[in-house]
Structure formats: structure tokens, C-alpha cells
């Protein structure tokens, strides 16, 4: 399984519909400070079922909806869609391609879909957990957090090994 495509609309600084095809094994993302690189990663975490606005650097989850710029007005919803290439059938119950999407509205409610079917947040989180990408995985290291892994308390580190188990 790998992440084939990321599409986001109205998510943080990505006002317009933006699509990226991650067609390589090592994909680099570069750009000046403040250009929106970390926002892209947070869009992936958002679609994977992240439930805390604080983990996406907001005060509340609504802070991730495009809130305007000097020339553009704020939007009322944010949408992120992931397309997973599952041709290795790591996700046993799905076919070659799996589409996962999440929409967040200004009133704070979210709508999740897997392959076009409405599902709950728990279903999306379970899908990724079964693929070895649960909430405690070390596979996602967000900006500034790499040294915290060494500073963390030994018991807190257990979660990392439970993921592997």
C-alpha cells in the first residue's frame, strides 16, 4: 500500500483545489518558510482521522478551514481526499484503489467517506491502524518533534512498540 494522491480544497493556506501525485518511493517537498509545506502533512493527518485541532496547530478544529488572506474571503468548509494504492492488498477488504475523504464544516461537524460510502471517524482510524499506521506510530514525525522522541518518558514509549506488535 502507498499514498498515491492527495487532493485538498480550502484546507489551511490551500484555498483552491490542489492535487499532488506522490508517484515515487521518496518524495521531497521543498519551499520557503511559511509557504504551506507542513500544512500539506496536516491535511494527510486530518483525512486519516485526526480528532484534535491542537495537533494540527489550531486552537479548535475549525482553524484548519481557509480563513482568508489580504485579497480572498474565508471559506466555509475544508475538504481533503487521499487515494491509496492497495494493489499489494495490505488492506485485505479493499480493491486496488481506496479513496478516503473528509469534509469539515464551519459548525465543526465532519463527514468521512471511504470509496464514496459515508463512514464514521472510527472506521477511518481502524483502516489505518490495520495497515500499521495507528495514532502512536513513529512513522509520522511532525516539525520540531524529532528530539522529543528521545526526551519522552520510557513508559510513554511503549505505544510505539505496541503498534509494531
Amino acid at each position, binding site marked *: 500500500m502507498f499514498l498515491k494522491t492527495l487532493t485538498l480544497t480550502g484546507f489551511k493556506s490551500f484555498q483552491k483545489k490542489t492535487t499532488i501525485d506522490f508517484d515515487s518511493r*521518496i518524495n521531497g517537498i521543498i519551499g*520557503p518558510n511559511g*509557504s504551506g509545506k507542513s500544512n500539506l502533512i496536516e491535511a494527510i493527518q486530518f483525512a486519516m482521522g485526526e480528532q484534535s485541532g491542537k495537533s494540527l496547530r489550531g486552537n479548535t478544529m475549525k482553524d484548519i478551514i481557509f480563513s482568508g*488572506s489580504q485579497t480572498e474571503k474565508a471559506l466555509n468548509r475544508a475538504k481533503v481526499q487521499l487515494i491509496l494504492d492497495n494493489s499489494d492488498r495490505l488492506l485485505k477488504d479493499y480493491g486496488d484503489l481506496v479513496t478516503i475523504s473528509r469534509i469539515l464544516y464551519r459548525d465543526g461537524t465532519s463527514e468521512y467517506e471511504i470509496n464514496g460510502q459515508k463512514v464514521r471517524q472510527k472506521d477511518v482510524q481502524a483502516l489505518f491502524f490495520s495497515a500499521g499506521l495507528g495514532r502512536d506510530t513513529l512513522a509520522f514525525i*511532525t516539525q520540531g518533534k524529532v528530539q522529543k522522541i528521545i526526551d519522552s518518558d520510557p513508559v510513554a514509549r511503549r505505544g*510505539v512498540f505496541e503498534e509494531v506488535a
Partner: protein
Amino acid sequence: VRYLFKKAFDTVNQAFQEIYPIMFSGGNAELKLTEPEDLLHTGVEIIAAPPGKKSRSLSLLSGGEKSLSAITLLFAIIKVSTVPFSILDEVEAALDEANVDRFSQYLETLNSKTQFIVITHRRSTMRAAQRLFGVTMVGTGISKIVSVRLDGELINKE
């Protein structure tokens, strides 16, 4: 559950002991259970000694040594288990040039198992990427994606 945890711990520990001297060009490290007789609650200790040094408390390690130790643990986990994709946001920011080179080289040995998406400002990580995506923000605070070629002109500009 206890049996699975111990098995996961042992395989990661073995890989961690193998990869550490590669990432640090020497030295040795291992993982230890704080309470081996209570597998349901035990914590995991990291013991590390960079080359030439005695093993001291982790808090005395330098910024770069801490980053590299954490990256080594991640690489050990990726090596022994299934991690479909991994996303790293400037994890090598504190590393010197020699360590960034070792980081990007090891990344290349793992990419057949795991897909990587790495945000970086460092040259040798950019060179390890098979494809680069540029993110820019036009004057009005809106982000856009531009495709960049990995030719010399981009790398030199950086």
C-alpha cells in the same frame, strides 16, 4: 498480548543495535525494558553511546545526537515491520552535513519497503528524493504546488 509486545520489542531492539553504528559511524546502543517482569506496564529505555564516548544519560546528548538517535529508532521499526508510508517534516534540521548524508543514504535502502514523503531544506535529502514538489505562496497568502526539476539549478539556488 504480552508475548506479542516482547517479540516486537526484541526484533526492534536487534535492528536498533545493528543500525545505530551505521548512522553514527561507530558507537553502540540498545533498548532495555524498565520492568522486564511486568510486560503489560514496562517502559522502554534507550541506552546510547556515540563513538568514543561512554554511555551517559540521554539528556546530555547533543541536539544532533538526539535527532539521529530518534531517526535510528524509526529506521529500526521500519526495517522489521510493515509501515506503508512515512512522513518526515524537517527531521534532519539539526544534523551536520556528514550525518545528513548518512540519513539520506539509509533512506534509500528502506524505500523499497516504505514510501517516504519528506519535507526538507537540506541538499542531500533533496538529492535522495526521486521527485521534488515545490510549495510556494503567491503574494496573497495562498499556497500553490509547482513541480521542480532536480537539476543543478535548483540545488545550487538552495
